[in-house]
């Protein structure tokens, strides 16, 4: 290949690389978004530790810098990329330190150095996105010259690592949380004689919990709680698929058959992602209090009746996606006036030493005569005493007394 041909190819590679990089920056979903405390606290800390006038986290779009977070400087603005120190860090992919820009021929004519108070010291540490591309720069600047020691550079790396973790969280957990939020019903169904509430509290690493309810016809309410094993977007996407498949299937099939079709339809997704889902789904004829349920390895539904032993609504059926060709069975129960059904997710188990203790807590809760909303709130509050390792979901269906 000719010299010119090689150069053209190299130019093409650089272009493709830059396109992937810009895509990664935009995927973060942080451009033109307001300052956030999770970045601001790192920036404030850096300013104190290095005792410089200005610290900023800049995201580098195709033709501009966006100041996502800053101390001693205004955040939320964009600057042309070609005039900036930060661009150099991006080109080299390693920290750029300019001890005194006025003495540095490469920088002495830069507007930031020549104008106003003038920047003399500058340090820029590139920030990698979740997939390794440089998406931004952590910058330190000061009007006084400065030399950074080895330990200063190590400290700068540590702070950059912290910021990179926050950037990665954004790419997955924030989106996963958003998916999960969209899966949840906005308000309880309006069912005469019943008080119904649901809650879902995502963990820091969002799992695949959701709950759903919908009226199949005027006299049949379906309530579902499911927990996709795993974390983040992968679990969230499968939860979205589950919810849709259950909703669609339930319109024209029995409960057992809806669960089977849902599992069959998602089998490839379960296999590819190495996951499975537990699910409790019930159909309630409100007027009669007749309850039909399928428990797919969920194991965390109880029926509390004043004056009778509490009944766990369980079966021996497998979770969805655990084994191809599985079938599920329906079981029956009755919700008498004054009875309450509580379904939670396994995040709640962390709050209790054993399932027996959890059942006693449920009985006390029902005995307190609270509304479904209050009960659901108290279940979540109980578990929130320790940091949530997993999502926590609770659905309460209480039949009123006439």
């Amino acid at each position, binding site marked *: 290949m000719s010299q010119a041909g090689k150069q053209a190819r190299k130019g093409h590679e650089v272009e493709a690389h830059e396109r992937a990089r810009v895509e990664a920056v935009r995927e973060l979903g942080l451009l033109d978004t307001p300052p956030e405390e999770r970045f601001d606290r790192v920036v404030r800390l850096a300013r104190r530790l290095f005792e410089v006038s200005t610290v900023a986290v800049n995201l580098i779009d195709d033709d501009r810098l966006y100041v996502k977070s800053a101390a001693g400087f205004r955040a939320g603005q964009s600057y042309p990329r070609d005039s900036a120190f930060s661009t150099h860090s991006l080109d080299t992919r390693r920290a750029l330190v300019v001890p005194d820009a006025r003495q540095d021929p490469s920088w002495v004519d830069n507007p930031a150095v020549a104008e106003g108070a003038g920047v003399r010291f500058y340090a820029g540490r590139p920030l990698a996105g979740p997939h390794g591309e440089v998406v931004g720069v952590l910058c330190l600047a000061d009007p006084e010259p400065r030399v950074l020691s080895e330990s200063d550079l190590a400290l700068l790396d540590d702070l950059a690592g912290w910021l990179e973790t926050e950037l990665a969280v954004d790419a997955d957990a924030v989106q996963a949380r958003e998916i999960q939020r969209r899966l949840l019903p906005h308000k309880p169904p309006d069912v005469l004689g019943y008080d119904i509430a649901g809650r879902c509290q995502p963990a820091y*690493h969002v*799992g695949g919990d959701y709950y759903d309810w919908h009226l199949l016809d005027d006299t049949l309410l379906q309530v579902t709680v499911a*927990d996709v*094993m*795993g*974390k983040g977007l992968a679990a969230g996407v499968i939860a979205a698929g589950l919810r849709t498949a259950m909703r669609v299937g339930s319109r024209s099939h029995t409960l057992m058959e809806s669960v089977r079709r849902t599992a069959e339809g998602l089998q490839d997704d379960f*296999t590819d992602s*190495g*996951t*499975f889902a*537990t699910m409790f789904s019930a159909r309630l004829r409100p007027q009669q209090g007749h309850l039909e349920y399928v428990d797919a*390895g*969920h*194991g*965390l539904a109880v029926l509390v009746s004043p004056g009778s032993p509490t009944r766990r609504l369980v*079966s*021996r*059926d*497998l*979770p969805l*996606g*655990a*084994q191809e060709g599985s079938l599920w069975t329906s079981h029956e129960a009755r919700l008498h006036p004054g009875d309450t059904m509580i379904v939670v997710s*396994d995040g709640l*188990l962390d709050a209790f030493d*054993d*399932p027996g203790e959890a059942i006693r807590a449920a009985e006390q809760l029902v005995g307190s005569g609270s509304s479904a909303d209050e009960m659901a709130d108290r279940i979540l509050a109980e578990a929130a005493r320790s940091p949530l*390792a*997993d999502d926590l979901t609770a659905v309460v269906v209480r039949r009123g007394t006439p």
Partner: protein
Amino acid sequence: MTDTSTTVLRPTGRINMVAAPALKILIEETVASGRTRIVVDLGEVSFIDSSGLGALISGLKTARQAGGDLRLAAVPEQVLTVLRLTNLDRVLPAHDTVADASHDW
């Protein structure tokens, strides 16, 4: 008698969202290398979460697809509780020892 072609894997500590992917890959690599009869010895495992269960179920499917199987031995109480709660003890029965798990493939 213990089958000589049994491969025993011994994860330790907590099998959570951090450790589960490595266990899943280890099982896949073991099966890919032709060793499809796998016993996972959980004797040194202190805790398993849903991601860990996912790795075991995924490993079970991988082993069975290759004509083998995956079995559990020395299962600690916390893991047993989770397996029973999810009914996964039906497909992943708990054996007392590695030797017990290594019969009748």
